[in-house]
């Protein structure tokens, strides 16, 4: 019944494919022109593609936490904080004139950063940092560092005393008195003008580099104009820096600030000359640590640029491998160029649909390129076999198209499907990744299945390649083929099953250890040993502040007057603060309640017995200094108050635990008119992301496997064939989870798509192979083993070859400075390679038993039993 339908389908589809091939080859001259024009058009458009590393793209905006965050973005932004830490590496503590001098200079430097909120810069050298001495008469308050500080021993002793009284130990001065901090807020640039914002950020990043370089660089570079450039004259110093780009300088832009303070003038690196001189401020005893969103952005952008060099690397490797495989320069070049075409087309389409390149979608071109190579290899391989068998170029093209159109198109559709299901993750950056990748794969149906055959009609295969192709396999190769073909014998299949089951048991057990979310502290975008994360650890370990912040918003909208003066509101916050302090994984908590109690206590001579919240509005107002919106803990009239929870780390499990405990408090403490809502801060974003990822995981897996099974069934019309193709993929997915668990790679935005991508691409091998197997099995005299052997000879080499090239190409990502790119590269590389092994190992083993021909089977089983 099903075979009957299958035959009918074969007739219909083959006729359709034949007609397509005739049209394609017949109109190839017209189509050639069309494709060249399209490529030129997209190529031109591709030059307009923009870098778009938007912060908001990376968060699950539909998640309730993120809705809270967006609602209060104006009240509680504060995310763009900059911390500059000066660490004294010499003898003793920081109270020496050398360090204090450096600290003063660094504070001045921070004031010079464009866009800095000057009123909020604080260090022991800023006047807003004062100490309070409670005296018999009341308070005494003075700046920590006296106005005319010159570094005499008495003054240093005085500063040390004042720092103690200021309460800044652990905040602006390290707990071990070996470092001091400058804290500043960057005001967002006018983001409506991306060009201006870009210039702004580049100037900020340049300044940050200078602050570090001033003390850590041996050399100072002075840049002078070579020729007049109004308002500057030749010889004017337009910049002083502590690092030089060398020959790359001509590509960079300097922003010279005119004396009158008008807009900076862009000066190209080719218009300046550089003088290098020893840096007078260099100090071996001082280390500079800088953390903050701007610094992170700078490091991520630098990491992104590194990715381009991997592309080159991957290209060269692929070229070498392709040539080794085909021994034809022409075929190699054609395959590579055709594999590049969808990349160019895709990048050309991006600006047209309003997309840019972000840290994740920058990986799509790699992926498209390697998938493109894989399919181009199948096509050129089939073409070469035809040519070697005696066909001319045009006929060979036509035949290659006919043979490969169905499996190739199905494989590409499954790829597209794999990319499409990752759109189930409700995060814009992942959506864009899915759309971009999907688009790229669909473009590949045109480039690989249409442009490549047309181009191949013009190629004349080199004699050397022809000779190489005709050369019979060496005895060793024959042995390898025989070995692989044995996988398809029921007897050896049992061995394969045994090995697979052992691996399966081990990896399943391991895979349960996989965690959701990131691990450790610092910026998850970057590697643990990156400078940024080193700086982050240094600051985190010597101060009481952390950089993993979860903020909870307490809404009290309907109270008369200031909500912070309502005892039910502040008392709830006070109890919440105490409760959260007791949650494992929390480092410290700050809220208006705690600060209000401090202020009230300060008004009562600092007595700890007064550190409590009074119940009357009038008495509470003694603490109202703590409810100043300027402190950033609440908005006007305390309509919304944020509780800052500093976490010990941002391990996914830790975040989940803290969030669950907070939700329990919220459920146990309903208070009229007060609403406690999660959650802002970087940990709030992580919590939302982790929850979104966790919710998407099962959905995504079901979608991809369900869709693949359906597509495979439509192609092969046999459930047994579907199982042969899908089961190895499922097993490798478990392997992948086990690998993630054992390498401590968490399931997160970057790694969640990996299984879908890996499965979507990995199914190609199975489809290409099984299509041939089914073709040969149609002959009743052919046994499964022989069908598999033939299929491997026809397509197996190409499959193995492409798996290796693709693994190497995406494997280059592991060199990236960006942690998540490295993780993705490693896992995808693993998936591509092991899926191939599954297709040539487990697939035939399953087939050997599922497609056993009944008659000759029984004696064989007897043999197996007898052999035992």
């Amino acid at each position, binding site marked *: 019944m099903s075979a009957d339908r299958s035959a009918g389908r074969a007739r219909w589809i083959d006729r359709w494919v034949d007609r397509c091939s005739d049209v394609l080859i017949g109109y190839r001259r017209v189509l050639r022109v069309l494709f060249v024009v399209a490529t030129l058009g997209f190529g031109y458009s591709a030059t307009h593609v923009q870098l778009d590393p938007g912060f908001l793209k990376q968060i699950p905006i539909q998640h309730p936490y993120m809705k809270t965050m967006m609602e209060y973005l104006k009240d509680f932004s504060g995310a763009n904080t900059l911390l500059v830490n000066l660490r004294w590496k010499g003898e003793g503590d920081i109270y020496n004139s050398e360090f204090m001098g450096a600290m003063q200079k660094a504070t001045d430097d921070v004031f010079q950063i464009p866009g800095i909120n000057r009123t909020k810069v604080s260090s022991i050298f800023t006047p807003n940092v004062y100490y309070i001495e409670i005296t018999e008469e009341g308070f005494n308050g003075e700046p920590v560092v006296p106005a005319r500080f010159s570094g005499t021993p008495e003054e240093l002793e005085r500063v040390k005393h004042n720092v103690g009284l200021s309460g800044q130990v652990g905040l602006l001065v390290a707990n071990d008195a070996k470092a001091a901090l400058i804290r500043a807020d960057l005001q967002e640039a006018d983001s409506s003008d991306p060009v201006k914002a870009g210039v702004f950020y580049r100037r900020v990043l340049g300044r940050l580099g200078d602050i570090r370089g001033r003390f850590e660089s041996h050399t100072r570079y002075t840049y002078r104009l070579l020729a007049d450039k109004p308002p500057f004259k030749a010889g004017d110093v337009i910049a002083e820096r502590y690092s030089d780009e060398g020959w790359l300088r001509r590509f960079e832009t300097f922003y010279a600030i005119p004396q009158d303070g008008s807009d900076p003038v862009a000066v190209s690196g080719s218009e300046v000359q550089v003088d290098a001189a020893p840096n007078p401020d260099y100090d071996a005893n001082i280390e500079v640590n800088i953390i903050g969103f701007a610094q992170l952005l700078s490091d991520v952008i630098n990491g992104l640029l590194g990715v381009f060099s991997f592309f080159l690397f991957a290209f060269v490797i692929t070229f070498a491998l392709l040539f080794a495989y085909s021994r034809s320069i022409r075929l190699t070049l054609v395959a590579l160029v055709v594999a590049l075409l969808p990349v160019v087309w895709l990048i050309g389409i991006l600006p047209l649909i309003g997309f840019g390149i972000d840290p994740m979608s920058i990986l799509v071109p790699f992926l498209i390129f390697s998938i493109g190579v894989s399919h181009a290899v199948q096509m050129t391989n089939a073409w070469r076999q035809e040519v070697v068998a005696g066909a001319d170029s045009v006929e060979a093209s036509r035949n290659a198209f006919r043979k490969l159109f169905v499996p190739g198109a199905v494989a590409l559709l499954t790829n597209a499907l794999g990319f499409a299901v990752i759109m189930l993750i409700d995060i814009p950056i992942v959506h864009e990744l899915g759309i971009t990748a999907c688009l790229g794969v669909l473009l590949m149906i045109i480039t690989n299945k249409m442009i490549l055959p047309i181009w191949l009609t013009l190629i004349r295969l080199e004699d050397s390649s022809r000779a190489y192709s005709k050369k019979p396999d060496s005895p060793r190769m024959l042995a390898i083929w025989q070995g692989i073909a044995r996988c398809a014998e029921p007897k050896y299949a049992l061995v394969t099953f045994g090995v697979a089951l052992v691996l399966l048991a081990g990896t399943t057990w391991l895979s349960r250890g996989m965690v959701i979310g990131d691990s450790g502290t610092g910026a998850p975008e970057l590697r643990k040993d990156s400078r940024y994360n080193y700086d982050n650890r240094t600051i985190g370990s010597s101060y009481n502040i952390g950089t993993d912040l979860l903020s909870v918003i307490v809404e009290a909208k309907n109270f008369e007057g200031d909500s912070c003066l309502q005892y039910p509101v502040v008392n709830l916050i006070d109890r919440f603060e105490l409760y959260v302090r007791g949650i494992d994984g929390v480092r410290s908590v700050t809220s208006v309640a705690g600060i209000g109690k401090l202020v009230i206590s300060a008004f009562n001579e600092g007595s700890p017995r007064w550190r409590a919240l009074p119940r009357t509005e009038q008495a509470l107002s003694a603490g109202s200094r703590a409810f100043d919106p300027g402190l950033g803990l609440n908005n006007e009239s305390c309509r919304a108050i944020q509780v800052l929870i500093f976490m010990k780390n941002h391990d996914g499990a830790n975040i989940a635990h803290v969030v669950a405990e907070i939700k329990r408090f919220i459920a146990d403490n309903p208070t009229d008119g007060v609403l406690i809502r999660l959650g802002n801060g970087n940990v709030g974003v992580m919590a939302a992301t982790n929850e979104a990822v966790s919710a998407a995981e099962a959905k995504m897996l079901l979608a991809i496997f369900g869709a693949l099974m359906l597509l495979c069934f439509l192609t092969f019309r046999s459930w047994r064939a579907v199982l042969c193709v899908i089961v190895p993929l499922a097993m490798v997915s478990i392997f992948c989870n086990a690998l993630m668990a054992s390498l401590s790679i968490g399931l997160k935005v970057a790694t969640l798509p990996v299984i879908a991508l890996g499965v979507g691409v990995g199914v190609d091998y199975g489809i290409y192979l099984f299509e041939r197997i089914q073709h040969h099995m149609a002959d009743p005299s052919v046994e499964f083993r022989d069908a598999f052997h033939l299929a491997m000879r026809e397509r197996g080499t190409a499959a193995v070859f492409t798996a290796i090239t693709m693994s190497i190409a995406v494997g280059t990502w592991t060199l990236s400075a960006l942690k998540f790119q490295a993780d993705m590269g490693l896992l995808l590389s693993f998936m591509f390679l092991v899926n191939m092994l599954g297709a040539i190992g487990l697939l035939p083993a399953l087939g050997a038993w599922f*497609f056993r021909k009944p008659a000759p089977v029984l004696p064989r089983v007897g043999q197996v039993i007898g052999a035992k």
Partner: protein
Amino acid sequence: MAKTAASMLQDASSAHVRAPAAAQSPALASWPAVVMVAAVLGAALYAFSPRPLLSFPVTAIGPDQLLIDGLARSGSRLAAVGEQGEILIADNAKGPWRMAKVEPQRGSTLTQVLFVDDQLALAVGHDSWILRSTDAGASWHEVNFNPELSEPLLGIAGPYDGKLFAFGGFGQMLVSTDRGQTWQPQKIDTAAPSEAPKPAAANADPFASDPFGAGATADSGGDRHFNGMVQLSDGALLLVGEKGLMMKSVDHGEHWTMMPPIYNGSFFGAMQLPSNAVMVYGMRGHAFVSHDAGKSWQASSLPIQGSLFGGTVTTDGTIYLVGDSNTVLVSKDAGASFSLAARADHVAVGARGGLAAVLPLTGNALLTAGESGVGVQNLAAGETAPRTGATP
């Protein structure tokens, strides 16, 4: 081309012919493959099923995570009271500390605790809250609470001739004659006739922008805060408090008279010394000793300028005072001079982390309480392990 199609057709129809034969071998014949498929399916379901959360310690406030303002001991039983009405009890200073039962839990911060005898204990706190325990601190019930007034009780003393005194902010005084079961307010005028005008102009108030700042603090109609009470050697009662307040009562607290001021800063506590002397201590490193029932006072010599919020004396006469910046002072000469017994080196003067109460333990150790909860400080050979905020 036609030939290929024809052969395809043939292949397909021959497959059709073979189909029934293939159908004859049911799943049974291919059982190893079926087993394999089932194993992978099962493994996949298990591997991708929701992963259990890691187990974390139960959420609970540790004894070092909340503000503790008062300590008391009866035999081996220790009680610590503080933030949000929490009462911790332990039978060993090293712990474990457990939460006592408080009924009803008002959530007002407690400031002092006192054992009247080995079973009866009393605790006082904000909102005139008084709690009573008759089982050595295991459970507490409310005997007084006044949220409308919202003024704190800052200390409890007695029984002196059968009377217990609870006192606190804005001249508040409550008296009990039935071992703390009922409490009667007593009005005491703290405005001394000869009091010097307050030097308000000297306040270089960093919170000056605050409209409520100065108004809500000490100037509550001249009612000064009471911080400590002690019985003098002649049986009279001494009450100390804000801005140098010292009052004396010779009739068991019925009437109070102002004593001549010896210091213009606040006193935070008073205690009896074994040598029939009395010590008072307070702001900015000030402590005084009187050997003649308060007629004359000698200033102690102190090495620091921090405020002192708690004190204790051992049976052998060693005096300990604690206060700001985790300061612990010790005197072995009956209070004439003090030396620094403990302070984490790196915590500079005035840094956060104050102590409010102290109890002597055996073996040259102290139990201290304050912003960082309760903790044991070892004073072996004058060396101290830094208790809080220390970075190894």
